[in-house]
């Protein structure tokens, strides 16, 4: 494992009884780089993200995050990482500001008030801070959840479909912000997404998952070239429909 590895995963598997959700996954992610997890529904993307946060214990395998053994020293790692997912909500009755204050407290963020103001300005949440999270639109919730994911300036950011419910303009601005944050902070980012354009634009490397296994991996442009396709979406469709020549 390299000194600068944000993540190093070796032979990671997760089984539920006879069902294998993830099998023999091994990969590294260098700090300052963006890794995309691509795959259809049930391919193992969310399971992999959950194991990278320690929310889910693997059946076998090892995970090192930011130089620490996640399974042994999870609480040394968690203050330095964060995540966002459209499938996990924030408390609906708390306002956006209250939610961000609570999570700033949980992550031990110094100068929480100024950090919240900064995120609200950058993510266009200023007019929404006093509104209950449950009354936000889907896109507004995504931005609030993204603000929570950045509250502690994470060195590793795990994002599950971060722009799923955003309009194209807001999604584009969020991607730009994410890229700027990642380049300025040197954070590693793992991005699970169905949005191929997003993956092509943001990711330095892509792991294509199928039935919980790595189907292929590489830089987006290399994968497109390798399969002789026009876009990553075509490569994805080949994989999903079993049309790959590999």
């Amino acid at each position, binding site marked *: 494992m390299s000194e600068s590895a944000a993540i190093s995963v070796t032979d990671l598997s997760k089984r539920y009884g006879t069902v294998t959700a993830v099998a023999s996954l091994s990969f590294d992610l260098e700090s300052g780089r963006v890794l995309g997890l691509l795959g259809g529904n049930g391919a193992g993307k969310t399971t992999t993200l*959950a194991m990278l946060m320690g*929310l*889910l*214990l693997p059946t076998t395998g090892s995970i090192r995050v930011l130089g620490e053994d996640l399974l042994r020293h999870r609480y040394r790692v968690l203050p330095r990482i964060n995540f966002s997912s459209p499938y996990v909500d924030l408390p609906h*009755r708390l*306002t956006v500001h209250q939610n961000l204050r*609570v999570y700033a407290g949980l992550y031990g963020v110094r100068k929480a008030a100024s950090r919240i103001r900064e995120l609200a300005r950058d993510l266009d949440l200023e007019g929404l801070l006093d509104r209950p999270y449950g009354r936000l639109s889907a896109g507004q919730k995504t931005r609030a959840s993204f603000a929570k994911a950045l509250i*502690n300036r994470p060195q590793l950011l795990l994002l599950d479909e971060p722009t799923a419910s955003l309009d194209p303009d807001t999604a584009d601005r969020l991607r730009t912000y994410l890229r700027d944050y990642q380049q300025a902070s040197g954070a590693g980012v793992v991005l699970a997404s169905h949005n191929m354009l997003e993956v092509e634009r943001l990711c330095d490397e892509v792991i294509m998952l199928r039935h919980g296994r790595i189907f292929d991996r590489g830089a987006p442009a290399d994968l497109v070239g390798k399969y002789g396709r026009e876009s990553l979406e075509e490569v994805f469709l080949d994989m999903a429909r079993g049309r790959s020549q590999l």
Partner: protein
Amino acid sequence: MTEHRGGSLRRMGAMIERYVYLLKGSWPRIIELAYWPTMQIILWGFLSEYLVHHSSYLAQASGVLLAAALLWDVMFRGQLGVSVVFFEELYSRNLGHLFASPLRAHELAGALFIISLLRTLIGSGMAALFAYWFYHFPIWQMGFVLIALFMNLIVMGWAIGLVVAGLVLRYGLGAENLAWAAIFAIAPLSGIYYPISVLPHALQVVAHALPAAYVFEAMRGLLFHHVVLYRSLWKAAAINAVYLALGIAVFLRTFRDARVHGRLLNLGE
């Protein structure tokens, strides 16, 4: 740049802040805290006023039914203050965010204890004031013994609340009715309104394993005979220590199981 400040107390403080926001933001929740205990007191107050003239037992200590109702509510509110507040995280599908943060399960339990204490003080406090204003029964005249009775009952409520929270973590929100049912299952054995000597022998054996039985025995000792049954209070505290340890162990175990089975991301309404 150091961005992070550690510390269990800080994380517990953040969770308490979260629950206080929830309480402050919902006036029906605040009213509900005091509504049920007060209704109980109205009911038991009128019954006491009637029975005190028709029962030689109650004539010896007119406030005994009111005291019993108030103290029983402490255990009930204490339990709900842990389990139902924990359910809020499931209703809002927030467990994934919470446990992806540095928050430990035992810190969440600690925050639940404190918010349970706060909610119980609000609810039972209002009911106690009501009992004083309308029935001239000042429960605080029990003095320091009241604190011992209160703490024993709320700790027993916490232990049950943690087990219920653990079961819901294990079986999902389909098991949430346990929060209401669990405590009533032990009510008949706790000797709230009658000495446990009236129970059949086999049930008396079970009752002696419940801290609440000793608490209500001590309450009657004080109100009827003006003696402090230290032995009963210590027995209740000792059994409570065991129950609380078991409650915490069950909660932590189900939390670990939830990490094995992937429930922290999936549990919700």
